[in-house]
């Protein structure tokens, strides 16, 4: 890469964009190999420093891209077989650069946060943690920078691996390891679909590079069915990574990992990979109406299901997890209704406030000495001021109260749902309902946790304290972002030219054409949603202001047990498969396959034992047998052979 070395002086960031993933990789190597030698602060500095470095690079790149010059950099041929050529190439355009910012930016904050959050860990585990985290960022960057599906897939599985490693970070705990396995395997199911989609593309188009695939002449090679199948397969892949029905159950379990990890991987970045991938292939998707509807419906269904479950969860992180699933559902709804921009926009805002909320919960857990059950909390607002306020901002943002970020993105999604040609009103209705549920359970969480009186043990109580600045500062920054983050996508009706993000992304995402509604309707919808949300919040306030623990019953119990989906999977898929494998192992293999082989051997032995009895030792019988055989041969030869 000599020519890139020279590029450092030359002022074009795009030429040296390969540095962006390289920094985290270096961080991973240093922290990973030197985790025994390096001191904790050292590790922390390296871990966060490399991310900061790539964040700076990303800003630089973003500026360049904003300046209008995008770039595809090919480095070497990853795979070159016959006509199939898969280069190791990065694509730097509006979409990827935006994601770069989110990943590195939020990632940096979370790294900083982790420095304090994880400080009790033993040094080498501390190093392990940061190396994993860096590796994750590396893979995530690969994912968004990759200029073709294969590189994307590499990142795709890479992040899956890191999430596996980080969920199982406390590997002594077997439950955590199980959760980790679950996450990886469920992702694998999706990945298989993804792979098949890639093969399909190769078979039909002969290439996997984005610019080739999306070019009109290769689109021409694809029949309508091809496109539908490919897009559906890709979407299945996305459901695995972005925790949609039916593959969402791993995400709540993934909360086994350290809280910052949940914030980074299972809220802000990795789980949005699916949205990124679909947004990236928006050209294909826009061409298959069927897939679009499937995406929309699945997304909405997920949003609703997760929201309902979130209503009754008592683990602070579980609530957030389900809310994440639900929010992701919203994003897919947006994708399905063609509002790719809205989806990406929501990815961004969601990254801000969900990261904020997770980190906040982390700070709470930190203060509570590892306690996660909100029923044992309450009245924390007095002790944890910063945490409380930032958390509150997060809640408002996610609930979608103007003018916080959540409002704009969610509003865009609701609007796009409303504008859906056939079933717009239905989609909108359910989406709105879900949004209201969101508001309700978020504030339930808030009130149960922070208001009322403390319900925990005594030593927990006097041990309560605000987290160190290393943790609070990121909270504050994220809170600020959650407040202002929305202004990059103000709808046209409120401010002319306010939809900056839309314009910015327009080169990669063609603005979606829906049945544009009149401004008045738009105002009405906004007002409606905002109003109802406020109602919900108040309801929550009255219900949970000073919460007393009560056991859930009826529907509540069902919800508390997450609609028994896990149990259903266990019963319907896992255990039958296990039984089947057992049968194969203990019956088929042993008695059929092996039995046949050994049977032949035994048959030979048996034949031997019988045949030797012919050797009776009697001369008479020998002669008799000889004569008889002579007789037979003569008869055959002379009378039966012609």
């Amino acid at each position, binding site marked *: 890469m000599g020519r890139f070395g020279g590029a450092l002086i030359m002022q074009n960031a795009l030429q040296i964009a390969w540095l962006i993933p390289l920094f985290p990789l270096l961080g991973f190597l240093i922290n990973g190999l030197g985790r025994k030698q390096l001191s904790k602060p050292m590790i922390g500095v390296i871990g966060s420093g490399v991310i900061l470095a790539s964040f700076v690079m990303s800003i630089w790149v973003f500026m360049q891209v904003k300046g209008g010059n995008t770039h595809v950099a090919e480095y070497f041929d990853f795979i070159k077989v016959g006509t199939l050529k898969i280069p190791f190439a990065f694509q730097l355009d509006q979409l990827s650069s935006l994601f770069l910012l989110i990943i590195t930016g939020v990632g940096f904050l979370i790294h900083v946060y982790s420095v304090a959050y994880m400080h009790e860990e033993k040094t080498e585990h501390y190093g392990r943690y940061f190396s994993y985290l860096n590796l994750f960022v590396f893979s995530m960057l690969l994912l968004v920078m990759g200029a073709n599906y294969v590189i994307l897939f590499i990142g795709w599985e890479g992040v899956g691996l890191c999430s596996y490693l980080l969920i199982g970070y406390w590997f002594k705990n077997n439950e955590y390891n199980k959760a980790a396995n679950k996450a990886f395997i469920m992702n694998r199911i999706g990945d298989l679909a993804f792979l098949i989609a890639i093969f399909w593309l190769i078979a039909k188009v002969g290439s996997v590079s984005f610019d080739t695939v999306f070019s009109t002449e290769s689109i021409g090679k694809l029949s309508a069915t091809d496109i539908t199948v490919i897009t559906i397969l890709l979407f299945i892949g996305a459901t695995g990574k972005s925790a949609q029905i039916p593959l969402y159950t791993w995400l709540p379990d993934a909360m086994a990992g350290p809280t910052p990890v949940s914030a980074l991987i299972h809220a802000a970045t990795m789980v949005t990979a699916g949205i990124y991938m679909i947004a990236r292939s928006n050209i294909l998707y826009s061409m298959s109406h069927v897939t679009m509807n499937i995406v929309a419906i699945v997304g909405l269904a997920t949003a609703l299901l997760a929201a309902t479950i979130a209503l009754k969860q008592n683990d602070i992180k579980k609530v957030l997890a389900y809310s994440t699933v639900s929010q992701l559902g919203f994003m897919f709804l947006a994708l399905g209704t063609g509002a790719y921009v809205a989806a990406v926009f929501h990815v961004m805002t969601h990254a801000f406030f969900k990261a904020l909320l997770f980190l906040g919960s982390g700070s709470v857990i930190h203060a509570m000495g590892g306690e996660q059950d909100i029923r044992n909390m309450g009245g924390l607002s007095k002790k944890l001021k910063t945490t409380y306020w930032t958390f509150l901002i997060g809640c408002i943002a996610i609930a979608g109260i103007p003018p916080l970020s959540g409002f704009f993105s969610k509003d865009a999604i609701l609007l796009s749902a409303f504008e859906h040609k056939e079933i717009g009103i239905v989609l909108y209705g359910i989406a709105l309902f879900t949004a209201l549920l969101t508001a309700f359970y978020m504030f339930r969480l808030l009130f149960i946790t922070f208001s009322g009186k403390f319900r925990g043990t005594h030593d927990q109580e006097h041990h309560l304290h605000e987290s160190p600045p290393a943790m609070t500062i990121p909270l504050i920054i994220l809170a600020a972002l959650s407040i202002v983050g929305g202004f990059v996508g103000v709808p046209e009706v409120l401010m002319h030219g306010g939809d900056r993000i839309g314009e910015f992304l327009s080169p990669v995402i063609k603005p979606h054409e829906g049945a544009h509604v009149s401004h008045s309707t738009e105002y009405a919808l906004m007002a409606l949603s905002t109003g109802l949300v406020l109602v919900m919040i108040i309801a929550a306030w009255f219900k949970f202001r000073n919460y007393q623990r009560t056991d859930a019953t009826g529907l509540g119990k069902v919800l508390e047990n997450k609609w028994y989906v896990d149990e259903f999977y266990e019963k319907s898929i896992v255990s039958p498969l296990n039984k089947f494998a057992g049968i194969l192992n203990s019956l088929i293999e042993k008695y059929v396959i092996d039995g046949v082989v050994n049977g032949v051997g035994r048959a030979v032995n048996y034949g031997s034992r019988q045949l030797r009895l012919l*050797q*009776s*030792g*009697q*001369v*008479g019988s020998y*002669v*008799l047998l000889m*004569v008889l055989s002579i007789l037979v041969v003569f008869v055959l030869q002379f009378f039966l052979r012609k």
Partner: protein
Amino acid sequence: MPINYYIFLSIALFCIGIVGVLTRRNAIIIFMCIELMLNAVNLLLVAFSKMHHATNATAGTDGQIFVFFIMVVAAAEVSVGLAIIVMMYRNIHSVDVNFLNRLKH
């Protein structure tokens, strides 16, 4: 005499010999039956030699010479065979072949 008569006669003798081998247990008698078989062959050979002689004046002698050799061999065989039988008799005081069943399977 038609040659077939001789063929049938000697075949008959031959088969009687075989039957003897099959039905008797006394080693000596079995051996005698084998001798009978040989003689059947001899008779057949002589008959054939005459038959061939009829068509071709130079042919035929070889058949009778062969018979001569068969007798020679038979004599040698008998000497050895009886020696073996006697040895057997010395050891187990019987010439019954059914007692020959130490070796089997």
